[in-house]
């Protein structure tokens, strides 16, 4: 009987739940700072860090790069080659600064999840992921409408080339729903759910391991708690990988959607 899992009603074990992700304002007594909770502080610090980093990288430019310039160039080339140039073709330069900013912002905000003093990825709060996705949606639709006109863009987005007329009643609503309604939702949900589920997994291992190790009886439980705490380091490593990958994937998909909006008629 001692091996039954404890429910949340058990004494002292607080199972991690989605409520752990709603954080209070940092200064509850100051009414005009009610918007400033930990997520907002992380995002503001991330923005300041990114601005400082890219300004410094743009400043010291020599023909033979030193170490600092090499790091900046590596980051810049990574976004330019793998994300912008491969997907957007010949007019990638218009969108490259935006893609670099998007990638840097999402990467730094994801990495707050493993930084020792914050330990909460900003995009684990759904509003952040959806805000970014809505911005991407506005941009790729706006770019398409600016290039093709409203009707032309809708025709491009909903009607692939070579579809016979008797299929149009099926294809047009499906493609409209898939390209214009579902795309921002899956973009945001992919980022948010990866950060949320990953952080929840880390919480389960650490909180469960700590409870098993320190507060429950039985030597088997204590050993299991210790193993769980050690294994949570491996889960942290997985989290680093997932955070970097999700930042990359968000930016790549943004570039792909932009490219499909800018595509010429077949």
């Amino acid at each position, binding site marked *: 009987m001692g091996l039954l899992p404890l429910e949340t009603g058990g004494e002292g074990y607080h199972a991690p739940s989605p409520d752990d992700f709603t954080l209070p304002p940092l200064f509850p007594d100051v009414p005009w700072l009610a918007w400033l909770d930990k997520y907002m502080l992380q995002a503001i610090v991330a923005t300041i860090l990114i601005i400082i980093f890219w300004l410094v990288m743009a400043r010291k430019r020599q023909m033979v790069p030193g170490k600092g310039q090499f790091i900046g160039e590596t980051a810049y080339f990574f976004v330019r080659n793998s994300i912008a140039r491969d997907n957007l073709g010949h007019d990638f330069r218009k969108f490259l600064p935006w893609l670099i900013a998007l990638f840097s912002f999402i990467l730094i905000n994801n990495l707050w999840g493993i930084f020792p003093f914050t330990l909460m990825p900003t995009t684990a709060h759904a509003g952040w992921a959806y805000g970014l996705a809505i911005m991407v949606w506005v941009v790729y639709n706006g770019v398409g409408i600016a290039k093709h006109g409203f009707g032309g863009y809708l025709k491009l987005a909903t009607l692939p080339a070579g579809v016979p007329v008797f299929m149009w009643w099926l294809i047009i609503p499906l493609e409209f729903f898939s390209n214009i309604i579902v795309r921002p939702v*899956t973009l945001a*949900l*992919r980022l948010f*759910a990866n950060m949320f589920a990953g952080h929840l997994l880390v919480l389960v291992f650490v909180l469960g391991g700590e409870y098993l190790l320190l507060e429950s009886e039985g030597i088997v439980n204590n050993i299991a708690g210790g193993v769980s705490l050690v294994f949570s380091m491996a889960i942290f490593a997985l989290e680093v990988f997932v955070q970097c990958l999700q930042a*990359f*994937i968000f930016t790549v998909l943004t570039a792909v959607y932009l490219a499909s909006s800018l595509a010429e008629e077949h």
Partner: protein
Amino acid sequence: MTPLELTGSLGIVGYGLAAIGPGIGVGLIFASVIQGTARQPEARGAMMGTAWIGFAVTEALAIIGIALAFVFGGL
């Protein structure tokens, strides 16, 4: 207690079913990467880039499953 009555969180059962598809999908992606690398080792770099993109898009379904399991199942 009614015989054959199931109690507990239905969200977790839903998540378990939802994780079948992406599991098979990710397996297919990396199986084709391994086969392609075996046939033509110099194409490995380009294949791995596409493999990670395909992996993230497929994995999104499984991750949406676990996130919505909390929403719908009320764990």
